[in-house]
């Protein structure tokens, strides 16, 4: 490759992070089992999953604190799979703030600049600028122990960006904060990221956090990438039952597909729930297969008993201000949760009411396999 092209690659890919076929085994257990994804420069990507899904391990391999069993880590166009963590020029914010307790706030933030040989005057200037960027100007002389949790996290953030890295890694940084503080910090981090144009890879187990903050979300389970896409993609078009169940709430119903009718891609699906209670829907699925159909609670429509749809009885209504959840028993012990927005006219149901549950076909997603 010609030198000019190589430089172009570095420039245009500066801030790009890509992992390919990443595997990490501890003994016989595969914490990460063949994950490939790419984060474009300036993108905010969340790694989302339950504990044990491998999300933190992937972050550690990008940071250089773990070496993969196999696979590649590429940062800004260069192969960094086995590069030392202190040579990767990444910013990192940890779950427990991890500020150096024996240094002042200022010294904490200036530390990476000191490591890069920046002169004292210049260091302090840039540390002040970073403090202002996180709205903590004037706190430079304090000790970390004197600051509140939210303030410490902001100092950690300032320390991670003061040397202007292209990529910022965040390992569940907000999980130690209480709800209000967390939401405030989410906004601040998002604004900061937009302002600096920095690439962010954000690990979290909180799906609301991931959906609100990220441009794209990568959902992981048991070391495998389930789906990566925009929050809307994940919510409205989940690729696997796991994603459908993990993101937001979902109702799952057992179903069976019929023979293909004609040459269309859509196949009729029958849901049988005993006592003749059944409904039909369509989906792009293999014919004559056992399926699970997933429908979001807010997509269910309740009508008076007898109307089209699955017949059932309301067993519980849960009032939550802006919406009411109705739990409907539809036979065979199966229950559906329907969420009805407060302003909808048909919201006034009570336990014991007989209802019919229906939905628009495009709001149901069918997945192969039994529950």
């Amino acid at each position, binding site marked *: 490759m010609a030198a000019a092209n190589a430089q172009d690659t570095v420039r245009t890919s500066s801030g790009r992070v890509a992992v390919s076929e990443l595997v990490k085994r501890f*003994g016989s257990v595969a914490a990460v089992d063949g994950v490939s994804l790419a984060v474009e420069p300036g993108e905010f990507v969340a790694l989302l999953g339950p504990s044990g899904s491998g999300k933190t391990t992937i972050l550690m391999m990008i940071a*250089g*604190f*773990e*070496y*993969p069993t196999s696979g590649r880590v590429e940062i800004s166009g260069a192969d960094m*799979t086995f590069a030392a963590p202190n040579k990767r020029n990444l910013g990192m914010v940890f779950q427990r703030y991890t500020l150096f307790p024996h240094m002042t706030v200022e010294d904490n933030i200036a530390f990476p600049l000191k490591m890069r040989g920046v002169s004292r005057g210049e260091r302090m200037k840039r540390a002040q600028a970073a403090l202002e960027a996180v709205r903590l100007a004037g706190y430079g002389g304090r000790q970390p122990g004197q600051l509140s949790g939210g303030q410490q996290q902001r100092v950690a953030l300032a320390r991670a960006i003061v040397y202007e890295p292209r990529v910022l890694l965040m390992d569940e940084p907000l999980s130690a904060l209480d709800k209000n503080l967390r939401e405030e910090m989410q906004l601040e981090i998002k604004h900061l990221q937009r302002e600096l144009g920095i690439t962010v890879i954000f690990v979290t187990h909180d799906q609301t956090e991931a959906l609100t903050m990220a441009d794209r979300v990568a959902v992981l389970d048991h070391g495998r990438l389930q789906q990566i896409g925009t929050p809307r993609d994940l919510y409205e078009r989940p690729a696997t039952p796991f994603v459908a169940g993990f993101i937001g709430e979902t109702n799952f119903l057992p179903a069976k597909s019929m023979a293909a009718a004609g040459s269309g891609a859509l196949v009729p699906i029958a849901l049988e729930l005993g006592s003749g209670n059944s409904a039909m829907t369509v989906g792009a699925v293999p014919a004559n297969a056992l399926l699970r159909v997933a429908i979001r609670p807010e997509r269910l429509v309740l009508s008076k008993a007898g109307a089209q749809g699955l017949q059932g009885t309301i067993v519980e209504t849960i009032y939550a201000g802006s919406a009411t959840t109705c739990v409907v028993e539809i036979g065979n012990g199966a229950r559906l949760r329907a969420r009805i927005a407060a302003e909808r006219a048909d919201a006034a149901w009570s336990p014991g009411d007989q209802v019919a549950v229906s939905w628009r076909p495009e709001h149901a997603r069918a997945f192969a396999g039994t529950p």
Partner: protein
Amino acid sequence: MKSTTRPSDFWLGGRRISEAASLALLVPFAVVLLIAFILPLATLLHESLFEPAFNTANYARAFAEPVYVRVMGRTLRVAVFVTVAALLLGYPLALAMSRAKGLALTLLAAAVVLPLWTSVLVRTYAWIVLLQRNGLINQALTSLGIVDAPAKLLYTEGAVVLAMAHVLLPFMVLPIYSALRGIPEDYAKAALMLGASRWSTFREVTWPLSLPGVASGCLMVFLLALGFFVTPALVGGPQQMMVATLISQQVREMLNWPFAGALVGILLAFVLALTLAFNRFIRIERFVGTRT
């Protein structure tokens, strides 16, 4: 499990220091121990077994001649007495410490820790001053009229036991205190609620739960007493010879290295055997703290 390409940095093995660097950090430690610990002991034991060819004559001699058997017997006897004395004196102190709080605890702890770190020579010297012919104890005894002439207190087996018990007492108190402090207060309260008297509570609850500490302390004091040199040498004198002073005599006066080596070998074997047998109570690995 090994990665396909080698990490680029000597020091870094990911989150931990690499194996090579860890080894490098341990080298000075290993060297010091080899030169100043393993080598000398091996040389001495070699002397005892190979002069010139392999034979166990020195070891046999230790058990054959009555003089030496008496010395070993005395050593064992004294060690047992010291352990018992230390237990009788140390347990109440440890018990009081476990119940004390604040200033009282600090004072009691200081009283135990200060002798522990004071030079053994200082403490032994103090006992000599006390037990001399015109030492304090004799002065008190004669002025109170209990005896007519100063009694011979020094250079007796009793003096050795007393002085050694004093010197080794902190080693008994600390493990017992640690074990007692680990017993949750609730146990005693529960026993009392169930109708037990204070004495029964102690006998049925506190004492059994403190046994690991007691065993630990007794073992430590016993082992230390077996090999003790300074106090028996100064307080016991040549008439009350114990293994350590015998070894010293063989080395410095008789220049009989092989026999001294055999005595050391016997002492070591005894100490090691006891340590291994009681390892369950002491659990050396936890004591060292390399694994939490």
